[in-house]
């Protein structure tokens, strides 16, 4: 497909949509799907047929509209209204609203901060396109960036544009994407690879899932542009087995793109060829680590290896390999389309662009949000998130999953960017944001994450394998009221030792949740150890008073 054909496909699809008198967009994101949006779609179609509105009403299934807390959501384009909590039995009410007054269904205010404060770049298509139809993506300027790059830019131009945009890796550490691309581009190798890291393993995060499920072509386009820039001809998408829908949709997307000549050999009539294979993970968090992911793609146990050499020099089968996360690759097409300066404008001095977060936990508006970097935590939690439900009091927000930390109230006005989060002992991570109120015990939270790291540790290096188990044991002593002050200081020693000596990022950051809770909520630890009480009333504290059993 060349640019002309792409444009005519886009025009045709837009016409088709415009021709539909009344288009209903039903959100089929995970949240709404579990709340019954699949049944709602069916009901809407059946009722429309029975009421003879078949020709006028088109029911389309779209990706996440964002406000998962109020699902299922339905957007009526003709009246520009969003309805929330539309149970399947309310299908008739939705159809009634097309001709007259809306009754019995709740209108969702799209002017509320939850929507108004967002800036959607990666999620620009979510809620608009039908993920299984490539035409739908093309109609919203899809693959335009790829064809532009192939026709007008040299690989070096692309790398320069990404560097100029200031985009940083959205998988956690925030390594400059342009720098990574240029390293791979410069590396020598008989073959090169591009890998999309879709092993979103952080508990409490589902951004990448949404992107892969709702807008799979965006990921493919980003990979193809990356491949052109670094000189790769083959790519892999590594997806978790826990995301069957994402796997299915990516598979469909790959075959559609191949059929349209947007993937495969001689893309758009140029000499550039790029094919993509899907690799399904099998339940190992550590495979999010680059070298472990490489081992896993090659069919091995997902154990990391010491770096250097970095995958950019020696990755898959010893060849230079570019590994980027889903959200990073999802940002590529808009950057090319709208220009690097436009993207660099968004955000702060060191962290440019937008970031997708999953807002969950003790918060009113749970859901998926995309905000400019530099927004404050308070704006996210209280404006966008709508604050703590049931009159609860904010206690902390956890970012960065098992590698991150808990941020207390005093830092709510801090801007959200890579450096600020690191300064307060957490990390950006992949974008999970779990809000906790007074009913959460920080020792319990730390113990939860340590259990996670312990069972997700690959077991290769001693500090992580034994250290996480030891720290978990000590935290269990604290949580059961069996710990002494000696145990607490032992725990702190282990934290710094495991951090400094572990082989990979999993071990190096495993102590973070403990360190950050000790830093801000030390009194809670002391209450557990010295007074043998759990202030939040969460921990079991089953050990007998005054008896330090060696658990």
């Amino acid at each position: 497909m060349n640019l002309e054909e792409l444009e005519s496909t886009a025009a045709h699809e837009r016409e088709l949509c415009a021709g539909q008198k009344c288009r209903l967009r039903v959100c089929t994101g995970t949240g709404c799907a579990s709340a019954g949006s699949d049944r709602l779609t069916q009901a809407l179609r059946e009722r429309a047929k029975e009421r003879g509105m078949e020709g006028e009403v088109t029911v389309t299934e779209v990706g996440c509209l964002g406000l998962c807390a109020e699902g299922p959501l339905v957007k009526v384009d003709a009246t520009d209204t969003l309805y929330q909590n539309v149970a399947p039995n309310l299908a008739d009410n939705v159809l009634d609203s097309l001709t007259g007054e809306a009754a019995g269904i709740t209108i969702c205010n799209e002017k509320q901060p939850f929507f108004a404060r967002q800036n959607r770049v990666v999620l620009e298509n979510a809620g608009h396109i039908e993920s299984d139809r490539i035409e739908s993506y093309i109609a919203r300027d899809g693959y335009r960036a790829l064809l532009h790059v192939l026709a007008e830019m040299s690989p070096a131009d692309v790398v320069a544009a990404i560097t100029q945009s200031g985009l940083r890796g959205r998988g956690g550490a925030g390594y400059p994407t342009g720098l990574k691309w240029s390293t791979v581009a410069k590396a020598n190798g008989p073959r090169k690879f591009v890998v999309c890291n879709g092993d979103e393993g952080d508990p409490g995060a589902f951004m990448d899932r949404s992107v892969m499920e709702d807008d799979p072509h965006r990921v493919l386009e980003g990979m193809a542009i990356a491949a052109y820039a670094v000189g790769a001809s083959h790519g892999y998408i590594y997806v978790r087995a826990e995301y069957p829908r994402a796997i299915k949709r990516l598979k469909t997307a790959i075959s559609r793109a191949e059929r349209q000549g947007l993937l495969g050999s001689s893309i758009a009539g140029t000499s550039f060829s790029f094919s993509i294979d899907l690799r399904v993970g099998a339940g190992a968090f550590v495979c999010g680590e680059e070298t472990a992911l490489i081992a896993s793609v090659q069919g091995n146990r997902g154990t990391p290896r010491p770096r250097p050499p970095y995958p950019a020099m020696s990755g898959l089968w010893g060849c230079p390999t570019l590994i980027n996360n889903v959200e990073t690759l999802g940002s590529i097409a808009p950057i090319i389309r709208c220009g690097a300066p436009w993207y660099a404008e968004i955000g702060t001095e060191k962290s440019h662009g937008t970031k997708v977060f999953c807002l969950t936990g003790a918060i009113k508006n749970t859901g998926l949000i995309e905000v400019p970097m530099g927004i404050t935590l308070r704006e996210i939690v209280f404006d966008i998130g709508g604050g703590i439900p049931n009159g609860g009091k904010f206690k902390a927000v956890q970012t960065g999953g098992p590698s991150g930390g808990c941020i207390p109230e005093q830092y709510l006005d801090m801007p959200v960017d890579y450096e600020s989060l690191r300064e307060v002992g957490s990390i950006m991570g992949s974008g999970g944001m779990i809000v906790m109120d007074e009913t959460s015990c920080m020792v319990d939270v730390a113990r939860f994450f340590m259990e996670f790291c312990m069972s997700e540790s690959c077991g290769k290096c001693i500090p992580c394998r034994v250290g996480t188990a030891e720290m978990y044991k000590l935290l269990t002593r604290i949580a059961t009221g069996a710990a002494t002050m000696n145990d607490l200081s032992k725990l702190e020693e282990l934290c710094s030792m495991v951090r400094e000596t572990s082989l990979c990022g999993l071990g190096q950051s495993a102590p973070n949740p403990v360190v950050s809770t000790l830093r801000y909520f030390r009194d809670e630890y002391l209450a557990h150890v010295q007074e043998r009480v759990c202030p939040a009333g969460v921990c079991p504290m089953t050990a007998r008073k005054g008896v330090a059993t060696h658990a």
Partner: protein
Amino acid sequence: MRDLLPKTAPPTADKRWRIVDTAMKRNGYAPDGLIETLHAIQETFGYLDEPSMRYVASSLRVPLSKVYGVATFYHHFQLKPQGEHSCVVCLGTACYIKGSSNLLEAVRTRFGIRSGETTPNNKLSLLTARCVGSCSLAPVSVLDGQTLPHLSPEELVEAICALDDTEEAAQ
């Protein structure tokens, strides 16, 4: 070269082995298709047993110990037959702070199984997930592939009982 080597026959005459063979063929019988092949076996037969692992090892020319090492490294792979119904309790952060451990406890009390176990009559398997990515619906469980949102322990037990025959599992 590989074509010259004698082909290993599937462990049984079951026609479904073709699905597994296709998966291996797709990767050109290369050793790096090991995980993909194990996925195919588990999807087809429900779990990985010894004959199937031996078959993969000899077909892909991968050492037996490596096949076993990989199969046990990844928690998605099951080495024992699973029950007719599966209940996956999500233990992600959002679910955890909203009380998913109570869900596990409720299933344990009612059906007498812990995570990773199957009831003696092979009706129900209880599993846990690190995060199923439905955090806005916490706490969630996935019952036979269907995500159940905002669950209370009672609701989960009720939903399990509503699956046919699982009622007997309690006895």
